[in-house]
């Protein structure tokens, strides 16, 4: 590895090639529990040209590359494979252009999601995708994982805002895909191949994103329920009333308690479930939708509905929801987060099933998630050192995934397959679909050097 590190130092300089053990340890993981593996070295390029040189070098010597941003992924997608080159894009973080005439922003991959959101906001615009880790996640990582967020229900996910990409391929060639045109059907939409590809098909170096006008008004409320079913019924009723709020999040009792311990914002500690509801848009419409949703919640058994009185109060509520996953880690040494997703109509059934699994195996599962889009986050609170319990967690996980697929859902709504969900992929997508993915991978990365062993073997 010393020769590799020395060669790469020739490209990037000493400071941006790391191979001391004390560095490698700290790149051995992402945000996923229990996955750890040390790379051979870490490189921190600052330009596309440097990324190309590293890729060319890796191709010549057949060394695998694992690309990462801030390492906040939740499926092990950026966990190194032993001996690989970790290509960290955190230092490639220039904002290239904000174009208010075309409502686009062009950034390098390492730009933090929050920064894009802030720049858009300052220009009177909105970048809707808001994954839980947006304060530190990079745009490149968001595109590679096709991240979702709290506003998915109304605004969709990262894919819906990517207009163009610059990608460095396995052979070191850089290509530009897409443009600022709203309509473009010139050939296959190749950018879409790379969105959600988890670093297995190419290295995303630049991203052109679409922005939308900032909604004039926003209203946030919190509804408490004594039964999880009632919360689920409320969600169904809101959708049936043809209202699409931008956020419809729920937290169960365990999650409420953990979040409150951290954030101390006065969440109802006696509730079985709470719904965080937010609507945005034209002032009049927002008012009308908010009062209608409040009514629906009360009709379906909400014990209390609290409307945020100020922007700050609303922000506190959504921020609290954003940290739910990390806050759950207060309870136990190991926190394993999943993101089984089902069609909205099957939500109540899926939640009941998860509760049943929890009782069956005697496991603590905190559940929260994006109720509006059927994306659930059952979270196992366990201890990796307790092998007996970990075995039960494995079994419970399999059951939950299988049931989600049976209900017409998927094994992962927004975290990606990575390493964590690899064993469940075939069952979820079917053999033919998996084979098509493999063919694509072989075409773009014939030597299997880009994040090998992720998504599928």
């Amino acid at each position, binding site marked *: 590895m010393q020769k590799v590190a020395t060669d790469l130092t020739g490209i990037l300089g000493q400071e941006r090639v*790391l191979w001391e053990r004390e560095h490698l340890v700290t790149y*051995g993981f992402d945000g996923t529990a229990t996955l750890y593996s040390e790379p051979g070295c870490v490189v*921190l390029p600052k330009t596309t040209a440097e990324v190309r040189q590293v890729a060319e070098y890796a191709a010549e*010597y057949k060394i695998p590359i694992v690309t990462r941003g801030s*390492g906040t992924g939740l499926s092990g997608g950026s966990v190194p494979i032993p*001996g690989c080159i970790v290509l960290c894009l955190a*230092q490639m973080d220039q904002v290239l252009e904000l174009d208010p005439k075309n409502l686009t922003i062009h950034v390098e991959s390492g730009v933090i999601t929050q920064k894009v959101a802030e720049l858009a906001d300052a220009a009177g615009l909105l970048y809707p995708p808001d994954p839980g880790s947006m304060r530190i996640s990079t745009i490149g990582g968001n595109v590679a994982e096709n991240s979702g967020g709290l506003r998915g229900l109304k605004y969709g996910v990262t894919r819906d805002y990517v207009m163009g990409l610059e990608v460095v391929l396995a052979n070191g060639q850089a290509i530009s895909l897409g443009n600022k045109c709203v309509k473009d059907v010139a050939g296959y939409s190749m950018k879409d191949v790379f969105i959600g590809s988890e670093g297995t098909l190419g290295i995303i170096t630049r991203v052109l994103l679409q922005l939308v006008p900032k909604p004039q008004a926003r209203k946030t409320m919190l509804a408490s329920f004594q039964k999880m079913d009632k919360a689920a019924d409320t969600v169904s009723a809101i959708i049936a009333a043809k209202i699409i709020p931008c956020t419809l999040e729920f937290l169960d009792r365990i999650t409420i308690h953990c979040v409150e311990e951290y954030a101390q914002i006065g969440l109802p500690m006696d509730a079985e479930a709470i719904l965080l509801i937010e609507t945005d848009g034209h002032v009049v419409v927002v008012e009308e939708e908010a009062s209608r949703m409040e009514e629906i919640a009360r009709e379906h058994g909400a014990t209390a509905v609290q409307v945020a009185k100020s922007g700050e109060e609303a922000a506190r509520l959504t921020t609290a929801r954003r940290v739910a996953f*990390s806050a759950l*880690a207060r309870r136990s040494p190991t926190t394993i987060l999943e993101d089984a997703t089902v069609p909205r109509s099957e939500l109540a059934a899926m939640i009941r099933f998860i509760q049943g699994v929890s009782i069956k195996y005697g496991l603590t599962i905190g559940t929260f998630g994006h109720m509006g889009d059927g994306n659930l986050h059952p979270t196992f609170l366990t201890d990796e050192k307790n092998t007996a319990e970990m075995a039960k967690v494995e079994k419970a996980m399999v059951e939950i995934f299988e049931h989600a697929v049976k209900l017409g859902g998927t094994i992962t709504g927004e975290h990606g397959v990575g390493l964590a969900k690899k064993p469940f992929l075939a069952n979820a997508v079917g053999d033919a679909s998996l084979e098509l993915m493999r063919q694509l991978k072989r075409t773009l990365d014939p030597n299997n050097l880009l994040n090998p062993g992720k998504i599928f073997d």
Partner: protein
Amino acid sequence: MRSSDDLHAAAVRVGRANPEGAENPSKYLRRLDYSVLQQCIHCGMCLPTCPTYDETKLERNSPRGRIALMRQIADGQLAVTRAFGEELYFCLGCLACETACPAGVHYGQMFEFARADIEQAGVKRSAIRDCVRTLTLRWLFTNPEALRTLGRLIWLFQVTRLETLVRRLKLTRLLPGRLSRLEPLTPRLQRRFSDELIRPVETPANQRYRVGLLTGCVQDLAFSHVNRDTADVLLANGCEVITPRLQVCCGSLHAHNGELELAKEMARRTLDAFDLQHLDAVVTNAAGCGTHLKNYGHLLHDDPIYAERAAQWSAKLRDIHEWLAEIGIQAPTVSIPQRVTYHQACHLCHGQKITEQPRQVLKAIPGLELIELPESTWCCGSAGIYNITQPDMSEKLLQRKLANIEKTGVNIVASANPGCSVQLEAGARFSNKNLKILHPISLLAQAYRSSNAGIT
């Protein structure tokens, strides 16, 4: 050409082989309750709030990176190496990561244990470092008479204009590198120490409480007037003030610098100085000390003699702003128009989660307009003795802080920690900025004095 299999094998070898492990096993981290280390789920929420990560964008310089290293050490997978030592001394110990952490990781505790391991293993040792550490941590800061004698000498040096002469003749160049950089940081020392300004017992006419007052060590040398102001403010709010003579350093310097045993000794000596049973509270006005003082209960939890007293102490310990907010602040009557911004000391906002109370103190002062400081919770680079040990990083943080202060357009900065005050004063001096750095309590004391004198 090497195949990836070779590389794989090489990496596994690097990972497993542990030549230094036998020489430098961990004494402290391995003893730490493992669940404290496991609490970190490496979600990364701490990264954007860590000043060192923000500067370098390297995982090793982040809280979760440092915790990963500590975990490897606790697991026996990594030795206490020199690189680990350097990393943990590159950390400011500002605890911004604790505020950011939804999982409730106790970084401060791990940080102290890690530094103790580093000192135990001696991986950062050098003749000069040993000498400085013995002179300061082991002698000066355990020996208040010696510290005061030195303080008196420096004061003489400053007031006799010898300092100006030395600086004019550029004699500071004769000092060894690091010391010459440090010399301009020396704060203006006070002519009189706290004991000369505050009587052992001072009782107000309308007594409601009895509190013990901590006068500190650096605070006593450089900011004894802040201690007097604190006594005045307490008296104005109905508190009898008990101030033990010749107080020792509380031990926070020792705990933060890998001398846990000495820290315990200083804690025991501090406990001995106060008659805890007869006090409603023990009050400190120094943020850095406050975090550590509140931790005595934990520090001495297995001490056969002091454990119980230390626990009581932790329960009674209050930062001055916290105490005033608790008992209700007597508003001064006279209005003095002034615009003030507030820099939040790390060990007040992150270490003790005290953010609103100092603002309450400032807002209680009639005529005072509080202008919020951008990034007010971002470390100023003082961080105990960090400005001495890591001058480059410290300087970057200081410039960032000064730039933020400039944005407010205000020249009075309220700050409640002696370290921050020294740092900000030095920063203002070097950049020729007309800044007044004042403790919030001094502003309040001033307002009481004006009220009593009937000045409008």
